[in-house]
C-alpha cells in the first residue's frame, strides 16, 4: 500500500487526534457508553464520531456491546501497554511442585495464568513439555471449578490438569499439570489424583 508511505497531510493529524480522544473517552466512561454520549462528551460532530468509532471497531481497538449501541475497549488495546512482567513464583511453590515430582513418576508442570495469558512458571526439567501443545491446552482452561480434567497431547501423551485458585482473592491463578503416557492418564489411580489435589491445595496459599 503506497498510501501508508505518504506523510500526514491536511486534516489527517486532527483525525488521528480525534480518534485517540474517542479511545480515551471510551476508557474513561467505561463499557456501554454510546456513540451519542461520546460525541456530546468530546463536542465532536456526530457524523465524525460515528465514522471514527467504526474505524476503531474495524481495527478492534473498540468493540460493540451486545446491544450494538454501547462501546467498550477491545482486547487489542492491551497491546498498547507493555506486557506485565511474569510474576515470580515463591520458593515455597517450587518446593510443593518438587515434592510432587518426587512422589509421581510423571512430568509435573506449574503454569501461571494472568489476564488470559499462560506461562510455564515451573516446567519439569526431566520431562520438558513438547512444543506448544501443553500451553495451548492450558490456555483453554476456563474458570469453572476446581475439578481435575484430562486432555490428550498428541496420540500417545495425555495430561491431568488441576486449576489452582488463589486463596487470597479466589482468582484462577495457576494450573498444575501431570503429563504421561495416554494409557496411564486414561485410568489414573486414585493415589495420583489425591497427590495432585493435595499439592494444588497447598499452592492456593502461595499464588495470587
Amino acid at each position, binding site marked *: 500500500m503506497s498510501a501508508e508511505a505518504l506523510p500526514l497531510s491536511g486534516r489527517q493529524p486532527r483525525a488521528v487526534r480525534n480518534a485517540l480522544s474517542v479511545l480515551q473517552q471510551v476508557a474513561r466512561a467505561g463499557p456501554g457508553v454510546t456513540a*451519542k454520549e461520546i460525541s456530546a462528551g468530546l463536542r465532536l460532530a456526530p*457524523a465524525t464520531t460515528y465514522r471514527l468509532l467504526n474505524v476503531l471497531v474495524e481495527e478492534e481497538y473498540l*468493540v460493540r*456491546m*451486545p446491544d450494538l449501541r454501547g462501546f*467498550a*475497549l477491545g482486547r487489542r488495546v*492491551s497491546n498498547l501497554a507493555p506486557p506485565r512482567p511474569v510474576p515470580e513464583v515463591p520458593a515455597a511453590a517450587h518446593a510443593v511442585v518438587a515434592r510432587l515430582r518426587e512422589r509421581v513418576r510423571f512430568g509435573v508442570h506449574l503454569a501461571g495464568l494472568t489476564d*488470559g495469558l499462560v506461562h510455564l512458571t515451573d516446567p519439569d526439567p526431566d520431562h520438558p513439555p513438547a512444543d506448544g501443545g501443553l500451553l495451548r491446552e492450558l490456555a483453554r482452561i476456563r474458570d469453572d471449578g476446581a475439578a481435575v480434567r484430562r486432555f490428550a497431547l498428541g496420540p500417545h501423551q495425555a495430561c491431568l490438569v488441576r486449576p489452582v485458585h488463589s486463596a487470597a482473592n479466589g482468582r484462577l491463578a495457576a494450573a498444575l499439570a501431570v503429563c504421561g503416557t495416554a494409557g496411564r492418564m486414561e485410568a489414573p489411580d486414585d493415589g495420583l489424583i489425591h497427590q495432585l489435589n493435595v499439592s494444588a491445595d497447598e499452592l492456593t496459599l502461595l499464588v495470587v
Partner: protein
Amino acid sequence: MSVRSTAPPPLLRGHSPVGGLDRRSLGPLPVLAQSVSAVAPTAAMATTPGLVRADTGVFAVWSVALATVLALLVAACVRTFSRRMAAPGALYSFTAKGLGPAAAFCCGCALLIGYGVLAMGALTGSGLYAQQFLARLDLSLGPPQLIVAAVVLATGTLVAYFLLRGVRLSAGLTLCLEAASIVLALTFFVVLLVRHGARPDMRQLTPPTSALGPVMAGALPAFAAFIGFESAAALGAETRRPFLTVGRAVRWTVVCSAALFLLAVYAQVLPTAGHTSVRLPALLDLGVSLSFFACALASGTALVRLLFSMGRERMTPHRLGRTHPTHHTPHIAIALVLPVLVLVPLALIAAGTAPQVLFARLVNLCVYGFLTAYALVCLAAPVFLYRIGELTHGPVAVAVLSVPSLLAVLLAHAATGGALIPSLFVALMAAGTAWFLWMSRRDPASVGAIGVYDETSAADVFPEPPR
C-alpha cells in the same frame, strides 16, 4: 467533560451464540473469494452481455453502469451492518436488527429461495457448459441430458464434501478456479478489443439521452449478474477481522465485477464483434462450467449458514444449529440441504425439462429472492442506525434511492417472464409466512431470538470483566 454511561453495561456472555463455527479464522482472501464466486463473473461475462444487448442495443454499457450504481447502493447498506455485527445469517440477521422478526423471517425465506435456487441453477449451469464443452470437442459420451445430469450429480457431491470440510479448504480451490476462468474470459475479450483497434467506439460511449427506457430495461439483466456479491457477510463470524474484511470484500466484489462486465459488454457490442451474439471459444465453456461450480459452492456456503442461524434460534429444528466437532461446519444443515439441491434439478431433468430451460427458470426464480432480500436490508439499514442512535443523512439517502429502485427492478422482472416463476416464488414465500405464523404461536421465544449473531463476549473486552 467526562461522561459516564447512564445505563449499566449490558451483560456479556461467556460464549458466542454462534459458537461451534470456526470463529475468527479466515483472512481477507477467502472472504473475497466467497463473494466473487457467488457472483460467478466468468459465467456472467459470457451470458449477460447478450441479454442486456437484446434490451438496449448499442447502449448496453450504460445499463451495466446503472446496475453498478444500484449494486453499490445495496453494498453500502450491507456494509452498514457488516461493520457493526458479524452474523452467519447475514442479511436475515441484519434485517432483524432493523425491522424486527417478521420482516427478518421474510428476508430469510427470500434468501433461502435465493441461495438455494442459485445453487441448483449453478449446478445445472455447470452441467450444461461441461456438456457443451464436450460436444465442441466431439466427445459425445451419451445423450446431452444424461451428461448434464451426471455432471450435476458429481459436482453436487463435491460441493457437499467441500462444504463439510469448511471454507479454509474450499477457498483455495474456488480462488484458483475463479482466477483461471477470469483469465480465460479476459483473454478472449481483450482479443476482441485488440481486433477492434485503439480508437474508442463512440457509438457506445455517447450518453443515451434518447434511449433512457431501454437502458433501464437493460439494467435488470445487468443487475442480476451482480447477485451474490453480498454473500461474504455469511462468513462474518468466521473472519479474523470481520468488521473490516466483510465490508471491503462486498464492495470490491461489486467494483471488480462491474469492471469485468463493462469490458465484456463493450467488447461484445463492438462492430467487429459481429452482429450475431459472440460465439465463445470451447475453452471458455470449460471456464464457465468451473465458474458455476464455484458459484454452487459459494451459494451453498451461505445457504447452510443461514439454516444454521435459524437452527440456533430454533426457528427451524435446532439440530440444524449443530456443528461438526472437527470441521466446525454446520454438518446437519449440509446433510439436509445438499440432497435437495442435487435431486431437484435431477428430477426436473428426468421429468423431461430441457437443461437450458431449467437453468433459465432457476436463475429467473432466484432473482426474486435476492431482490426481496436486498430491498428489505436496504430498508432496515437506516432504521437500525436510528435504533442504535447513529443515524446520519447519508444512509437515509441511500435507502431512499435504493429501495424504490429495487422494487422497480423486481416489478420489471415480474413483468418480463410468464406467470409460472412469480407464482412459484409467491407460493414459496407464503409457505414461509405460514411457518412463521405457526412458530409465533407455538414458540414465541424462538421468534424473539431471531437475529442471532457473533456477539462480543467477555473475552473480547479489555480488561476482561470478572465472571
